[in-house]
């Protein structure tokens, strides 16, 4: 039985849904689980935190994300509560925070895990763009694992009492790396790495304006909109939309690839999607070999029909 720590990521005060995956992972195996939240009021989050032993609320006048302060605070929490293994989400913030924490806590870190055994400190993650899986073990000292979103199947919360709430102080030292401003993207886009459904467009979109066709379908499905490298390089889509080798790795339940040929660079970014649908004019496009379902046809004819049909079904 180990002492497990979880970093519960809150985004603008909201409870990120991948936290439920972390909690599902940690509740198994009879470990003592401590969830760490940086917040002024922990009450709204307690219903999500049943079935674990302790909540550690980090308090302070300024809880805004400064990576050095967060890393030092968590390193102190790990020390104080004698946590052996610490886990978080492999999110945009997690990618920044956990290497810093690992360095401060002198911990071994394995990122982007598909599965973690908290007792033996072994984890499996994709390597070589998902062409292989690697199993790692953190041997000496503390262990930190980050988990890829949308991989662990969330289990229902157990009944029972709320966990004990303990406090920890926010580090107040001067950060070396200082965030001085945040530039919002302007639109309220769905986070692709956490999206359940993604509609993606490739070179065949032909123009930036044509992405409206995909956005219409995405709105009906509450989906995120992605793009292939070809579409981004042609200026049809912005780089934050790119799925693939040099873009985002996504893992939705449903991935709808529209006018995407299916080059390896793109495939490695979406191959773990549970169901892949391909819509492409070219019956020889490699994407059809990788898709669960394919429709050979012009996306500009097929996608609007798909939108209509989905609308009918979803009421």
């Amino acid at each position, binding site marked *: 039985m180990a002492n497990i720590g979880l970093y519960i990521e809150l*985004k603008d005060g909201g409870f990120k849904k991948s936290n439920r995956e972390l909690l599902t992972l940690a509740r198994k195996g009879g470990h003592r689980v401590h969830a760490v939240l940086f917040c002024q009021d922990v009450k709204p989050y307690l219903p999500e935190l049943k079935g674990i032993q302790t909540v550690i609320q980090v308090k302070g006048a300024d809880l805004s994300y400064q990576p050095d302060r967060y890393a030092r605070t968590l390193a102190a929490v790990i020390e104080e509560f004698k946590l052996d293994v610490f886990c978080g989400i492999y*999110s*945009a913030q997690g*990618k*920044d925070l956990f*290497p*810093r924490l*690992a*360095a401060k806590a002198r911990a*071994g*870190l394995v*990122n*982007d895990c598909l599965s973690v055994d908290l007792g033996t400190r*072994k984890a499996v993650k*994709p*390597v*070589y*763009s*998902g*062409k*292989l*899986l*690697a*199993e*790692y*073990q953190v*041997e000496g*000292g503390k262990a930190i694992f980050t988990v890829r979103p949308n991989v662990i199947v969330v289990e229902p919360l157990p009944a029972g009492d709320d966990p004990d709430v303990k406090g920890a102080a926010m580090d107040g030292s001067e950060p*070396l*790396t200082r*965030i001085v*401003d945040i*530039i919002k*993207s302007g639109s309220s886009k769905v*986070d692709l790495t956490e999206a359940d*459904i993604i509609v993606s467009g490739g070179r065949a979109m032909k123009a930036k304006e044509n992405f409206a066709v995909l956005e219409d379908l995405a709105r009906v499905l509450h989906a995120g909109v992605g793009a292939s490298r070809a579409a981004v390089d042609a200026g049809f889509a*912005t*780089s*934050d939309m*790119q799925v693939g080798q*040099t873009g985002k790795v996504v893992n939705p339940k*449903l991935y709808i690839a529209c006018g995407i040929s299916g080059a*390896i660079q793109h495939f*490695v970014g979406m191959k773990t999607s549970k*169901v*892949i*649908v391909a819509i492409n004019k070219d019956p020889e496009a490699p994407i*059809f*070999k*990788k898709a*669960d*379902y*394919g*429709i050979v*046809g012009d996306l500009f004819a*097929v996608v609007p*029909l*798909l939108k209509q049909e*989905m609308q009918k*079904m979803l009421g």
Partner: protein
Amino acid sequence: MNIYVCIKQVPDTEATILVKDGRSINEANVKWIVSPYDEYAIEEALKLKEKVPGSTVTAMCLGPERVHSALRTALAMGADTAVHVECTASLDPSNTARALAHVIRADKDFGIIFLGKQAIDDDAHQLHIRLADELGVPVATNVLAFALDGGKVRVEREIDEGAREVIEMAIPCAVAAAKGLNTPRYASMMGIMKAKKIEIKKITLAETGVEEARNQVRLLKLSAPAEKPQGRTIPGEPAAAVQELVRLLREEAKVL
């Protein structure tokens, strides 16, 4: 300014990767390249050198003999010198950071260290931060815009949904590049010729004081993931095919 760029040599993205003995890959027929994010790091280092008179760019790479070709690429693009940390062992990220930090620390005037945000082989995604921590300097990751602002560095990094954080750091510091930071230049014929004449400085792993035995993270096993069975194409006119697709997604795949 003494500018450093740390690069890694990785198999080409198109390469077929096969497991050799459960713990390593079969390197026969693998074409080796500079990890794509590291190319953005090299380019940004060269751009900075062009802006700050009297600067030099030193490219560094840890690995076996074959990494010379990666260092030659950096030299051909315009780096002034190259350091090869000779290592046939498999180091974990904190050990790699210690070895590279040992070399950089020997230069008391090191300025900015550029790296890629991750290497596309093991995607460990932590070396930049561990290296900065070893050196006691600030670090920004996933950087899309870089500028010198007085005596400071100002960068923008992508966070969720296309939003950006603006970060300020004192120099020395480390900057980890993302796609979109710049467009890496191609080496010119003259650059390639010039690079051939530059001697690559070699440092043994023993000289850095780092040992594989001190690895905290150990690779136990490499394996090929299970292949998905091939899917099917839904025949028929678009309207009928779409109806059938929605039915299959709901009733068979159960994703709606």
